[in-house]
């Protein structure tokens, strides 16, 4: 079930830290600086990259020069930069700062990185994605690592090696500060629920080029790993901080020789539970949510940093059934999606010897709808659809690129049957699609990727 945690309300407990708010903020900023220095030192001394060879001159040039739209590859800008920002953010959070102060520390880290820590010209999209994507990802990483390290009252659980290792992988700075600050700082935790599964199946990908026909690109057996997680519940008045409730879905797929990474998240910034006098069994929540989503594979790439409204609903249907549904509508303030012509040119023909993006930067809207039905917590039906309408930013079009619109969608229908609690077996059908409507000489494109798989997993 998607969001049914009302029976286990989050028990929140924050005890006073030994440090003042300014002390915590200062420590967070210091760790952000150390994080930047460490990454720079890797670029400079280990990787010996040209962009790591900073000097007083490069700093001065970047400080007083104009900002650009970055040309780095998709994985660097839409996976790497949010992770970099998440390290900044979780450093500040785990040092004791509140979310908004941590956002400030993240923007400090991102701004100083862009201006001073690279020889590359500072870029607008990097600043946005590192700061806001990083805050979104960082708060989730921080919360989940706290969940491993602390119990629901904020006390240290004397976690074992597996828990410490898990927390460190999720959020290295949280583990560092846990060691550094010891028991002086406690963080609230909330219960998590969800399911994890592995799957085997069959996948098929097609590209339709307007005026030229349809081409099959991928066809064959596939395997996948999926993780669905809900943190806290939206149906409580106790939610006082951003991300007291969030949901995330992460997936790794292997289709023939192609990998396929997906990540979707919705974090509650501010919400209000709603009650109906006519339907006392129903739980509703209306709120403002932040989203950090990406799809990363050879055929379809999508990066979307968004904010919008969300409505979640949970209700029993008779004695045996329960329904949960959610609707999210939002604005994509920084999106990205690949330009297949440039991408395939670079893969199969000849890439230029200078940096040139193979994807567009865009703004637009998102729609996420989901519905989950369960029968006596034994049989589950899930249906989800996510849709992104992206308008390409004209001034950010790379050399050889084009303006226009792109529509990306991801649909999933799954059935799960609990054979022995918590283990289940199931099946699902998933499809990704993308329509690209270009304004220059490029023909319009339609891309589809279908996946059918049998699943086995466990519920937590």
């Amino acid at each position: 079930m998607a969001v049914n945690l009302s029976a286990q309300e989050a028990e929140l407990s924050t005890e006073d830290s030994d440090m003042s708010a300014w002390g915590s903020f200062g420590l967070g900023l210091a760790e952000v600086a150390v994080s930047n220095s460490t990454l720079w030192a890797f670029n400079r001394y280990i990787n010996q990259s040209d962009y790591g060879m900073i000097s007083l001159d490069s700093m001065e040039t970047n400080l007083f020069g104009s900002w650009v739209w970055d040309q780095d590859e998709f994985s660097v800008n839409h996976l790497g930069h949010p992770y970099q920002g998440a390290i900044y953010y979780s450093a500040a959070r785990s040092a004791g700062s509140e979310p908004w102060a941590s956002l400030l520390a993240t923007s400090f880290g991102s701004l100083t990185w862009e201006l001073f820590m690279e020889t590359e010209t500072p870029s607008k999209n990097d600043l946005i994605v590192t700061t806001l994507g990083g805050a979104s990802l960082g708060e989730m990483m921080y919360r989940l690592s706290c969940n491993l390290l602390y119990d629901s009252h904020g006390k240290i659980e004397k976690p074992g090696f597996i828990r410490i290792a898990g927390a460190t992988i999720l959020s290295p700075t949280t583990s560092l500060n846990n060691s550094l600050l010891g028991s002086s700082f406690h963080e609230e935790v909330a219960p998590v629920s969800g399911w994890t599964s592995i799957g085997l199946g069959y996948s098929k990908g097609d590209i339709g080029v307007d005026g030229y026909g349809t081409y099959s690109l991928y066809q064959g057996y596939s395997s996948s790993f999926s993780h669905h997680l809900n943190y806290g519940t939206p149906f409580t008045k106790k939610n006082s901080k951003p991300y007291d409730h969030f949901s995330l879905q992460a997936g790794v797929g292997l289709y023939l020789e192609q990998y396929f990474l997906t990540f979707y998240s919705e974090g509650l910034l501010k919400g209000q539970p709603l009650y109906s006098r006519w339907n006392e069994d129903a739980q509703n929540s209306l709120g403002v949510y932040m989203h950090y989503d990406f799809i990363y594979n050879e055929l379809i790439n999508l990066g979307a940093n968004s904010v919008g409204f969300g409505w979640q609903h949970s209700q029993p249907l008779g004695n045996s059934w329960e329904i949960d549904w959610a609707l999210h509508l939002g604005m994509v303030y920084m999106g990205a999606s690949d330009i297949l012509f440039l991408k395939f040119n670079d893969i199969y023909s000849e890439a230029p010897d200078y940096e040139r993006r193979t994807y567009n930067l865009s703004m637009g809207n998102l729609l996420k709808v989901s519905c989950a039905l369960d029968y006596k917590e034994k049989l589950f039906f899930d249906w989800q659809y996510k849709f992104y309408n992206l308008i390409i930013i004209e001034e950010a079009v790379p050399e050889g690129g084009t303006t226009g619109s792109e529509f990306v969608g991801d649909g999933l229908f799954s059935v799960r049957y609990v054979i022995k609690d918590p283990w289940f077996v199931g099946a699902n059908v998933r499809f990704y699609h993308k329509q690209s409507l270009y304004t220059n000489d490029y023909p319009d494109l339609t891309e589809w990727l279908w996946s059918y798989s049998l699943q086995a997993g466990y519920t937590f």
Partner: protein
Amino acid sequence: MKIKVLLVFSLLCTSLFGEIDYRYGFSASFGLPFYSGSGFEDYLDEQESSLSANDVTNNPIIGSSIGLIFEVPLNNKFTAHSELNLVGTGGGYVASFDDETSSHLLSEINLELALFIKYYFGSGETQVYLLGGPQQSYLLLSAEYIQDGSAFDKYDGLDYDFFGLAFGAGVGIEFSLVDHRGFIELRFSHEFTDTFGSSGFKQNYGGFFMGIYPSQGVANE
């Protein structure tokens, strides 16, 4: 035989450090290394001529260090403060042409041993201090990196001297950090010896240092 010598050395260290009051810590810095001296000024003039550049200017690069600290109190105001640091240092210059620049980065990675005397003002949780003393450096790696427009090249192994001697001095603040002691410090060092041969190149490093002494109380209790 080697094992016996090591054993005796270990026992000596154990007995010595068992007798004295000491503390250890960790430090890291971020700084601006640059070359100075008449030799470097001459070198920049030569480069301006040989590269047919409009101008060649000294360009401090960005350096960093990580290190271990070992500190022994001498009395309630002074401590003997030694450091073993891995330091990324060097210098650089920028050649300006009509419509572009060429950036040259001369990189050194040194192992550095510093022996400082440290003086604490006042007492209590937060203390200001001054420190200064000699620093020995041992060259581990060197290279020159040239960014010429979009072209980037690296040349390994500059003909630098293995050994260098410098004087460093700084001012800092030490404070409590939960159960530990933390510090932030501004420090500058200037090399007495020439970076290579009798070149007249002098290495400088102005840096912001910070670090921690884990759970061991103040230095001059």
